[in-house]
């Protein structure tokens, strides 16, 4: 059963307040994924404090650097069920987990962080990994 929208709102706002586009319907997801050029970060958000509690601050910290993706969007697992399923279809070979983080380059998935790579790690560690991926895949777009 989904959590109360009121309880979840602050967790959504941790990402939307730093420029993430929230995708709440399959149509939102389709439209966002249809933009193929450049780099794009998609976060599968989650209420789980065990992992999302590090993921969101880590993402925020990583995006504070000079090199960052051209576009950022998020779906909320367990809340926006259809949108999340549509987003996961973009990397259907990868088992579902949340939170998780997908980085696309020109429409291709180039980097993925599953939930178990976030669990037990600090926001700083999550940010460090993401910054490395941004340097590798987004640097051209930042010049």
């Amino acid at each position, binding site marked *: 059963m989904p959590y109360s929208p009121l309880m979840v709102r602050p967790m959504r706002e941790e990402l939307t307040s730093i420029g993430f586009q929230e995708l709440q319907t399959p149509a939102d997801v389709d439209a966002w994924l249809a933009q193929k050029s450049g780099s794009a970060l998609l976060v599968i958000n989650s209420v789980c404090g065990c992992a999302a509690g590090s993921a969101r601050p880590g993402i925020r910290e990583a995006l504070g650097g000079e090199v960052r993706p051209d576009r950022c969007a998020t779906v909320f697992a367990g809340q926006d069920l259809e949108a999340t399923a549509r987003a996961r279809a973009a990397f259907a070979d990868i088992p579902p987990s949340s939170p998780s983080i997908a980085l696309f380059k020109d429409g291709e998935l180039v980097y993925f962080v599953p939930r178990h790579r976030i669990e*037990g*790690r600090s926001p700083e560690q999550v940010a460090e990994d993401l910054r490395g991926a941004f340097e590798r895949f987004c640097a051209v777009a930042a010049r």
Partner: protein
Amino acid sequence: MGTFHQDRGELHGVTVVVEAADGELWVGRCDTCDGRGILLLDADLHKEGGEGGRSREEYLERAAAFGVWPRHPQVLIPPQRILSVRPLGSF
């Protein structure tokens, strides 16, 4: 910020690899770990020579990179069958 269940043990919410008796390898998200055993959610099971013919090493390599498919919504592994428990993130 998030939901926490700190009364469920330090492994709660952590995706773990449970090496069990009879060559079983379970991977799933730990819900509770206590005297009854370890309760895994959204778990997968590997048995040597099992589905897909993947070796244990191949299976763990793939699991460590991407996670596992939730083929078992929940499974309780009793303590007498558990040989080791490690976070999947440590592989």
